[in-house]
């Protein structure tokens, strides 16, 4: 990869990339975090932690010398959490059609 492309990849993951991955991670976390004693931890903790998740992604993108690792961590977080959310949405129409029968 040319230095120019590497620079813009890093800027992309530190800028819009960090925002998108943080928001998708927040959405996905609500589906796998334990609910806790009041049944709300999975809903409230992602909301409280999202500024820190974003900051961690931002500084990781800026400071990790290995760009491949920056891309890998961000894409993995995105894929896992987007996948969890998508799975939940695919389940919902299936459950609705089950209810109809």
């Amino acid at each position, binding site marked *: 990869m040319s230095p120019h492309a590497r620079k813009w990849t890093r800027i992309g993951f530190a800028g819009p990339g960090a925002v998108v991955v943080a928001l998708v991670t927040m959405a996905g976390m609500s589906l796998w975090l334990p609910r806790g004693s009041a049944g709300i931890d999975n809903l409230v903790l992602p*909301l409280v932690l999202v500024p820190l998740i974003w900051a961690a992604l931002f500084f990781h993108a800026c400071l990790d010398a290995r760009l491949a690792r920056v891309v890998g961590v961000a894409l993995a977080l995105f894929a896992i959490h987007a996948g969890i959310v998508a799975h939940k949405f695919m389940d919902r129409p299936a459950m609705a059609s089950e209810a109809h029968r």
Partner: protein
Amino acid sequence: MIHLPKEETKLMVAVHGWSGVLLGLVLYAVVITGMAAVFAEEIGAWSAGHVETQSAFARPFDRSVRELAARTPNEFRDDVDLFEIGDHNLGVFFHRHEVAPSGELINRGVYYQLDRQGRVANELRGTGEEVFGPRNDDALSSFLVDTHVRLHVPDPWGLLLTGVMGLAMLVAAISGLLVHRHLFKDIFTLRRRANPVLADRDRHSVAGTWSLPFAFLLAFTGSFFSFFGTIGVPIVAMAAFGGDQQAFSDTVFGQPGKPNPTPQPIGNLDRIAADAIGRTDGAPTFMTIEHFGRADAAVTTFHESKPGDIEPMTLVYHGGTATFDREKPSIGSKPSTGGTLAAIMAPLHFGNFAGVLSKAVWFGLGFAICYVTLTGIRLWLARRRERQRSLDWLERSVTVIGFGLPLALLAAAAGFLVTMPLGSAVFWTPASFLAACAVAILAGAVVPRQEELQRGLQIAIGALLALLPLIRLASGGPGWPATIASGQLAIMAVDIATLAGGAWTLWRLSAQGRERTAKDSAALQPTE
């Protein structure tokens, strides 16, 4: 302290510097109004001459609420919010919950503003967004809080803007920590007589180091508040409840228990308030009645935190029988990690968990963070002054905004004090602010020398600070004997603070003036 490799350090310096320069002046506006907003309640009492100290909940209000219920259309009697307005009078909002086309949860109903005798002084109908605007007697505190929360930009853009400012401060705090190689070795070093770059660097890094933990805390909690309702809840509700924000709200804030729509008149609210005051040693700051007029009605009273705690207290009562049910956490029906963390975000940000003591500390920290922001921009400019003359405009802008903004806030206070007795404070408070901004901008354009501009603005700040108590008295505000007699010490305290602040500012400026005159005449002597 943290030794990053050279390239990463350069990048962090660039991130720190550019985020500070591009966003620093807007961030400064958010922080300085936040600093004032810490004392919004005291400033409200001071500016409007509120001498009442007894809470509206400590006086009978049950009968008023029943009379209001009788005249409120049935469709709006699902829930009721009760809170204090004006000089410890009661505000009552009968409402129902609706979901806007955007999916956002809104409340629609009738908002009654009561006077001291419990009679309706004003009645407004509409959504919460529509009815809860500034009133004549709280126009100044509303103006300060609204500027801080959303910079007067309409929702959701204003909240998103201040949220981005919070993230910018978070980035600046973390990157500042990463680039500072000798954080603790430099913590007491202020080389005032060194070259401007070194002097500015020391001022900035000393203030930044001492206030670092709080800069991080305030940035994090502030951005939480800005993004929570605008982006956070809709996204989490989408993932967990298919976009149903009502279901989200019911899960997080709702009361457990079986619904029972059997009609039953609400129990005695005065008895509930008295019991709540007895249990918590303090009047409620807010009271809600859910399912008003039903057998499953629940009354929740919200109180300040117990001494030593940060999380506010919340009590729940059976609405129909007016009997105590339980103490519950602020968020969630049972104590939980998530509930506790979410519940302490507000006290950590507002600094109101230990009364005036914590508010004073938070005010001081706000001042320190304003100082860090301005000295940081000045340092960035000082480093480039040799190379780039064309940055004079930015240097001037920093002076105009840095000193013009506090001047404009003081002008808003003066405008409020003069026009509140005339009933036109809602217009004139922001108008005075804008007029003072225009004067500061004009001064920035016409005053030839930077030092004169800065000195002129500081003199204006000092003079206005010292004059505010006199303006307050001249406009018919209560004098100190009346405020001491009623026990409302906030009025005297704010008077003393502004007098002392004004006197100290003017004294410092006159000392600097004398020092400069002495230097100038010493410079002249060899030529005589």
